[in-house]
Each structure stands twice: as structure tokens, then as C-alpha cells.
């Protein structure tokens, strides 16, 4: 018990860019967990994409030691992903902690994600330690921000350390506050093992590595364990901690945070939220809150070059190794050939996967418009539809439901008008508006997820000049008058361009898509009609006029080779386009229809 008294398990929560990773680096530096030299900036964010975007996707726990009042404390910092797509993963890592350091930017104050994360932390009964960061900024207003924290969140913030993580100012205040305020873990080391998995990753040699918080009991190599969600049994091969590199130790005991390996072949079997216990002497109850994460956003991913289907398949398999939340299954499209329907936790997750396919696997991919999971009710019951092409004919559908979310938007008051206009335009239902302070307003709306998926972020950014912040949580399903909008090229439906939209939106979307396609589809020697249609009824039409000039200029100095190469290249380029009947569709056509609103402004 004595050992547990000096353990502090905590995470850092913050709005994006408020300095979470920088603070984590400073804490490691201050506790000599890492020397400055080892500390390549923002050690915890190990993926390139994370670094570039300043967000954390994979969780990495770090063990540090801190001397305070003559005692040696063990600090376990569990980093959390900072994005709404990973809310469930955040909640599981919060469940592994007793405290949370809340970082708030001294210039920007409380933002959408700050609040969302604070609520999650409070749900998990965490002690919250507010910290005001970036006091070195000229625009810093720490006292006002403290008051904001007290008014909006209702946390006493008078004593909150005011720091600059970037400049390394007052970092020790944070460490002291953690030692003082965060309660020690409460588990019973003599009870049977009960360990919460809050994340896992795949290692080529060790198999799936579980990141765990030991609630009760202890674990060591040789223990026979079981996963409580599925009953699978394994033998522990290794336990250890991160300092921040993995270091194997003899035993993990109640209150500890570390890793556990047991020759587990797939991370699908080490789902966050699951409980590990002894196979023969199990704990009476699993950790609360386990659920299977389900994708909420779907899109088709196809190789730009049809012959690369196998490569794409391999790449998705490899990504799936480390990302159990990625879903994919093969699908075929008349326009795009063989590819995959992929499910993601959200838009950011989707972007990350696409980017990794292109960067890490060097694949050219075509992505179809992202959609959500619709519930379709017919006389034979309810089916979930993720691909517009699978929607039953309109005549067979009784009604449909679409997922909605509660959207919280924080904005300076001058942008209220344009933002509310945007929300109305996106079929939002107004819920509430509160002045948080003179200069900031919280607006909440119930909004269909398919409208958020379709260009809401960019619209919000441009309407508020980037000042508004936004967060959402799922809010169930709602009955809705939805239709399938088809695009016909030269008279044939191009399935990869079909989308499901609200009836009121169909006309404007159809027209915008037709206009956009007119610009991106190359002209041919004949006229190409582009039609947008609902159930065979044409609602918008554009025409790509026949090509009138396609000829090379003279051969300077008798240079025939250059001309021939130009033509050969042009021919090659056309092969890379998708042949749809007699029409060639460049890959960017499929992407460009996702970005219609931007161009209009």
C-alpha cells in the first residue's frame, strides 16, 4: 500500500494547439526522464502525421520519477488523443488515471475541446489540475482565463500554475500540483488481477502489446490471463513500463501503468476498454464502460491504377494491424472497379488513413464522397446502409433515419450571424446560445452528421476567420426525408458519384456537382451530358462541349521525338483516368465533388 501512496496517474487534456505535447516534453525533461538531447521535439507524438498536425493519435504512456518533500513519486503520464474522432479512446485512457492536468492557453482561453475533455474527465471522477500555459505570449491574460475556468467549468483556478511550456517557465509548479492534488490509486494488490486496456499497438516480434492500468492485483510473465470481452486465454510473456522506451520489469501491481505482452496475434483482441484478468481466478467484475467502437463515417477507397488492388489490400491489412477501429471490406464499383468500403471513427481518422496509404505505402488512391450510416426501414425490417449504391429502390423504402450530433461551437460574437446561417443551411436545429463572457459565445445545435461530414469544418473556419472552435457528440438517429442523388455521365449512372442527401438539398447539390464535374472531366470529340437525377428524374444538367483544339504546334528544328513523347505521355495519362463508358474521369473528379461549398464562396 505504501508504494501506491506515491503513484500519480494522470493525463493532460487541452484544446488543439494549447500546448499539451510541449508540456509533456517539459515534464519529462524536468524529471530527467529524458535529457534535452534525447528530446526530439514532442517525443510523445511518434507518427509524422501527428507531428505535422500537432495532434496525438496513438497514446503513449510515460513513467517519470519526481522527488517531493523527501519522497520519490512515480508519475505515469498517459497522453490522450486530442480529437473528437477518438472520444472513446480518450475516455478509456482517462479511466486509467486519477487526475488530469487541464492546459488552457492564456491568450485563447477555454475552447470547445477543452470543455468536451473536461466533461469526459469529470465523468471518470478525475481530479482536475488547471494550468495556464503560454504566459509568455504578449496577448496572454492569465487572470481572465482563470476566471473563465471558474465561471465556465466551475473549477477553482486561483492556485493554477501559470507557465510557459515553450520557455520552460514554472514547470516545477505543475509537478508539485500533481503530487499534491492528484489522489493516489486505490486498488487492492491482494485481489485477483484486474487490468484495464486503454490502448494497444502491434509489434512484429511481440505481437499485440496491451497498454494497461492495473486496477487490482498484479501481473507478471508466466501468468495465464483472459480477455473478459471474448474469453480468449493467453500466457503473459512480458510486462514492463515506458521510460519512455519500453523497459521490461518483473511485475506490474495495482496502481501501475505499463505494458503487457502475451503473444496475442491481433490487436482486434486487445480492444481499448476491455479487462484482463487471471484465466483461473478471475476478478468478479470487469472495468466499467467497455464498448465496441463502430465506424461512423464511410467512404470507398480505390486504387487510382486498377492493377494496384492487391497493394491497396496489403496496405489496409497492415494499417489494420495497429488500428482496430479501421474497418474495410471489398466492394466493386462500375466506375472504379475493385476497391474497398472503409469505415472510420470520423473525418480526421479518414484523412489520416488516406494520408498514410499515400505516404507510407506510396499508393495513389481515389476516395469517394464520405457518408454516414443510414437506417433504412422497409417492409422486411431495418438495414444499415453505408454505400449509396446499396440503397433499396425508393418505392420499397418506408422511411429512413440518419445519425445526428450535438454540435458545440465557440465563437467571438461578431461571427454569430454567419455561423448560425451556416448551421441552418446545414439543417441544424438550434438548441441554445450562452455568452461565456463578453467576447465569447457558445452556440449549440442538433445537426445531421452527414452535413458535418460534408464540408462543415471548412465552412465554419471561413465564416469565422478561423476563430470559431467546434466539437460534437453523437446524439442518436432521427427520421429524415433522404434521397439518393445520382450523377449520369453520357446517360449512364456513375455509381461512385452517387450520394445520399436530404431532399431539400438535392437540387443545389446536384447542380453544384454537375457544374464541378463539367470543369474537371476532360472534353472529348463529342458532347458529354452530365445530369444529376433522383430516381431517374433529372434535376440538373450541364454539357461538356465537344473538344475543338487538340493539336501539337510545329516541330522546332525537326524535333519529332519531343512531339511523339508528348503524345505518348498524353495517351499514358488517359490510361490512368477511369474509363467510364466513353468518358474519362480523372481521379480528382471524385474528390472535387466533396469540396463544392468552398468554391462557391
Amino acid at each position, binding site marked *: 500500500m505504501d508504494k501506491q501512496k506515491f503513484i500519480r496517474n494522470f493525463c493532460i487534456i487541452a484544446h488543439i494547439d494549447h500546448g499539451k505535447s510541449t508540456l509533456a516534453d517539459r515534464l519529462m525533461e524536468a524529471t530527467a526522464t529524458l535529457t534535452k538531447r534525447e528530446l526530439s521535439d514532442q517525443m510523445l507524438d511518434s507518427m509524422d502525421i501527428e507531428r505535422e498536425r500537432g495532434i496525438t493519435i496513438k497514446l503513449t504512456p510515460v513513467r517519470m520519477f519526481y522527488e517531493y518533500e523527501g519522497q520519490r513519486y512515480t508519475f505515469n503520464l498517459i497522453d490522450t488523443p486530442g480529437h473528437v474522432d477518438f472520444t472513446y479512446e480518450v475516455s478509456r485512457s482517462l479511466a486509467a488515471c486519477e487526475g488530469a492536468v487541464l492546459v488552457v492557453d492564456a491568450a485563447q482561453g477555454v475552447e470547445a475541446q477543452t470543455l468536451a475533455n473536461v466533461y469526459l474527465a469529470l465523468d471518470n471522477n478525475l481530479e482536475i489540475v488547471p494550468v495556464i500555459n503560454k504566459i509568455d505570449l504578449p496577448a496572454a491574460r492569465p487572470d481572465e482565463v482563470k476566471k473563465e475556468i471558474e465561471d465556465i467549468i466551475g473549477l477553482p483556478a486561483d492556485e493554477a500554475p501559470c507557465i510557459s511550456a515553450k520557455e520552460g517557465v514554472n514547470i516545477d509548479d505543475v509537478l508539485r500540483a500533481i503530487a499534491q492534488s492528484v489522489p493516489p490509486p486505490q486498488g487492492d494488490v491482494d485481489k485477483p488481477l484486474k487490468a484495464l486496456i486503454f490502448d494497444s499497438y502491434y509489434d512484429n516480434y511481440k505481437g499485440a502489446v496491451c497498454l494497461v492500468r492495473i486496477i487490482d492485483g498484479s501481473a507478471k510473465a508466466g501468468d495465464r490471463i483472459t480477455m473478459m470481452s471474448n474469453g480468449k486465454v493467453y500466457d503473459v510473456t512480458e510486462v514492463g513500463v515506458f521510460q519512455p522506451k519500453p523497459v521490461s520489469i518483473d511485475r506490474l501491481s495495482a496502481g501501475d501503468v505499463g505494458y503487457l505482452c502475451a503473444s496475442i496475434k491481433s490487436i482486434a483482441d486487445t480492444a481499448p476498454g476491455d479487462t484482463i484478468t487471471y484465466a483461473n481466478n478471475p476478478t468478479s467484475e470487469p472495468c466499467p464502460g467497455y464498448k465496441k467502437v463502430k465506424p461512423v463515417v464511410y467512404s470507398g477507397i480505390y486504387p487510382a491504377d486498377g492493377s494496384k488492388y492487391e497493394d491497396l489490400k496489403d496496405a489496409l491489412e497492415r494499417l489494420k494491424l495497429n488500428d482496430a477501429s479501421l474497418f474495410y471490406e471489398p466492394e466493386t464499383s462500375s466506375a472504379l472497379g475493385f476497391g474497398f468500403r472503409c469505415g472510420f471513427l470520423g473525418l480526421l481518422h479518414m484523412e489520416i488513413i488516406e494520408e498514410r496509404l499515400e505516404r507510407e505505402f506510396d499508393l495513389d488512391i481515389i476516395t469517394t464522397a464520405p457518408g454516414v450510416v443510414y437506417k433504412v426501414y422497409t417492409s422486411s425490417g431495418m438495414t444499415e446502409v453505408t454505400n449509396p449504391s446499396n440503397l433499396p429502390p425508393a418505392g420499397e423504402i418506408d422511411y429512413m433515419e440518419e445519425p445526428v450530433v450535438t454540435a458545440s461551437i465557440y465563437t467571438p460574437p461578431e461571427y454569430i450571424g454567419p455561423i448560425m446561417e451556416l448551421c441552418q443551411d446545414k439543417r441544424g436545429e438550434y438548441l441554445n446560445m450562452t455568452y461565456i463572457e463578453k467576447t465569447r459565445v457558445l452556440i449549440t445545435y442538433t445537426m445531421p452528421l452527414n452535413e458535418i461530414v460534408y464540408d462543415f469544418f471548412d465552412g465554419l473556419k471561413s465564416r469565422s476567420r478561423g476563430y470559431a472552435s467546434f466539437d460534437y457528440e453523437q446524439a442518436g438517429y432521427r427520421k429524415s426525408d433522404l434521397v439518393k442523388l445520382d450523377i449520369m455521365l453520357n446517360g449512364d449512372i456513375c455509381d461512385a458519384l452517387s450520394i445520399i442527401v436530404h431532399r431539400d438539398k438535392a437540387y443545389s447539390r446536384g447542380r453544384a456537382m454537375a457544374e464541378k464535374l463539367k470543369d474537371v472531366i476532360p472534353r472529348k*470529340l463529342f458532347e458529354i451530358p452530365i445530369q444529376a437525377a433522383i430516381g431517374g428524374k433529372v434535376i440538373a444538367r450541364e454539357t461538356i462541349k465537344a473538344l475543338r483544339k487538340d*493539336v501539337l504546334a510545329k516541330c522546332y528544328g525537326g524535333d*519529332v521525338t519531343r512531339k511523339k513523347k508528348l503524345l505518348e505521355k498524353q495517351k499514358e495519362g488517359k490510361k490512368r483516368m477511369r474509363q467510364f463508358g466513353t468518358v474519362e474521369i480523372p481521379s480528382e473528379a471524385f474528390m472535387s465533388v466533396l469540396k463544392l461549398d468552398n468554391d462557391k464562396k
Partner: protein
Amino acid sequence: MTIDTEKSYGVYIHIPFCKAKCKYCAFVSTPDFSLQKTYVDTLIKEINDSEFKGCVVDTIYIGGGTPSCLFRGGLADIQTAVKNNFCVTDNAEITVECNPESVSTDFICECKDVGVNRISMGLQSSCDKVLRAIGRVHTYADYLNAVELLAHSFDNISSDIILGLPEQTSDVVIDSVTTVARHCSHVSVYALTVEQGTPLYKSGYMPSDDGIADMYDLAYGKLHDLDFCRYEVSNFALRGRESRHNKKYWECKPYIGFGVAAHGYDGARTRFMHGDNLAEYIASPRAESCNLTDKDLYNEYVMLRLRTEKGIIVDDFYKRFGYDFCKRNAEILHSLKSENLIVCENGFVKISPDKMFVMNSIIEQLMLD
């Protein structure tokens, strides 16, 4: 490389000097005239060392750049070198390119002295506003003076017109074509290509394809009315005034290239190319050679022949390739014919006359992968 003494060769000589660079020009030329003497010496050395020495030459084309801005005596020196090394036929077509601002009595005399019998003038447009916009150093009046001066000595003059230039309207195009037709027996009508790196490209100017197509149709109609026949997509001539030299390119006949950036072809499996760095050329005037694969030969032949009004001569194709063009491409020809993109008749396969300006996508379908 094959040297065929039975064949008649063309000779192309490149003169990379211009008083000023036009804003659309991406070709090799410099306004630094101090290099002219060295350059001509290098050319002569290259001609003297030619592997094709002794061949029959029936066309010579001195292009540029602006050959008319060469120092006096330069053309004569070059011409002498060619005559000393090749069997230039009595009726050889000898063309010199010139720009209106550098046509002088001296220049004309020198041309006459060395046997030049064809002049190709760069006009580009008959509107001064357009000429200024593209950085030409001459006016329309300069052109008229020059062409009248030339007409006293030459009966075979060609002029170039470019379509799609800044400030150029359809009326300007009609006017340019009419003027040229009045003074010349040959017209080249090119569509502007905005090449990367040129001042025009950097200015962001981009003409509309439809606009250029309209201008081309107008020019074609006007020239047709004035008895100029199109014999290649960009070239129109009164009967008998087609450029014999340029036809060699389109008919895959052999030609020898001398000078920086000049290209050559042995009529069989070898193409020759000079780099486009002037200093490197002067240091080492040899051309690189490149062997053509069966696919290269085929694609070049199809691409070049289909630029001509006559098109592919099925018999000639058979002689070169040893198989029947129509049989090999039966399926694709059938579909192209049904779309009225191609005409196959009397032993010729050609692009339909009204599809000449969109020939690329048709040619591509006939090219090998």
C-alpha cells in the same frame, strides 16, 4: 545509322540569334551577337566533319532564331560549306527564315548570291498592338516594307501567323491571313503554345482553346477562298508552293541537322539531336544519336503522316513496315470511321478534314502503347 546514297537528304541549319526574345518563345536563341563569328565557324566545322558527307541534298532550310540578323557573309560561308561537302541538286529548295526588322538590301543580295530561293517570314500578326504584346521588335509596316522588298527578288515567300496571341481578335486574324495571302505563296498558321518558363507563361496568359479553334476555322475558310490549300494541319500553299523541306519531316524522309538544338534523321532507324546549350555546342558540335525501336518508328510515322492532308499512304506504310496498316488496325479504324474521325479511301488513311484541329486524341488511339 544508314547512309543511303540513293536518297535525297534535307539539311537544317539552326541560327540561334535574335535581336530580342519574343515573349512566347521557348526555343534556343540569344541576343548576344558577339558569339556569331565563333558560332558560324563551329557550324562550318560540324558540316565539314559530317558523317553524311557526299550525300545528295535537295532541300536546305536555314532557320532560327533569326538568320537574317547574322553578320554579312555568314550565310555565304555556311552555304559554301554545305556545297563543298554535299551534292546539292540544281533545283534544291533553299529556304532562309527572316524577321521583318532585319530584311535589308544587303541581306537580300547575300541570299540571292548563295542561291536562296525561298523566304520564310515571321509576321505572327498584322496588328501592332498584338505585336507589342508579344514583344516582337517589328511593326506591321516593317513587315509590309520587307515583304515588298523581298518580292522583287523572290517568288516563293512564306509567312507565319500565330493564333491565340494576347490582344488578338478574329478580325485581326482575318486581316493577317488576307495580307499574307496577298504577298506570299505559302502560309503557316500555328496555334500558340504557352511554354513553361516563357515571359508569357509567367504573365499567366492562357488563350482559350475554343477561341483558337474559331480563329483557325476562320483562317482556314479565308485561305481556302484565296486558293491556298492545306497540306499539313498548320501549312497552306498555292499549288506547287508547298515546302519541300518541311514535308520531309512529315513524310519521315531523311534530313541532317546542323547547329545547336538541331535534329536529324537518317530515314531509317536513327535520329540525331543536338543539346540546346549554345556554349556546349561551340565546345563540342557533335550530335547525339538515338536508335529507334519498332514502336518508335511506328508511332512517329503515324503521328507525322496523319498531320498531312494526304494522311498515311497504305502502300508506303507496307514498304516500310512490311505489313498492312489497315488490317493491323481494322477494329480501331472501323470505330474511328463510324465516328467520322478518319477517312480511308484510295489507299490513304487520313484524319477527316474537319477534325484536323483535334487530331491528337485520334492519333493517340492509333499509336502503340
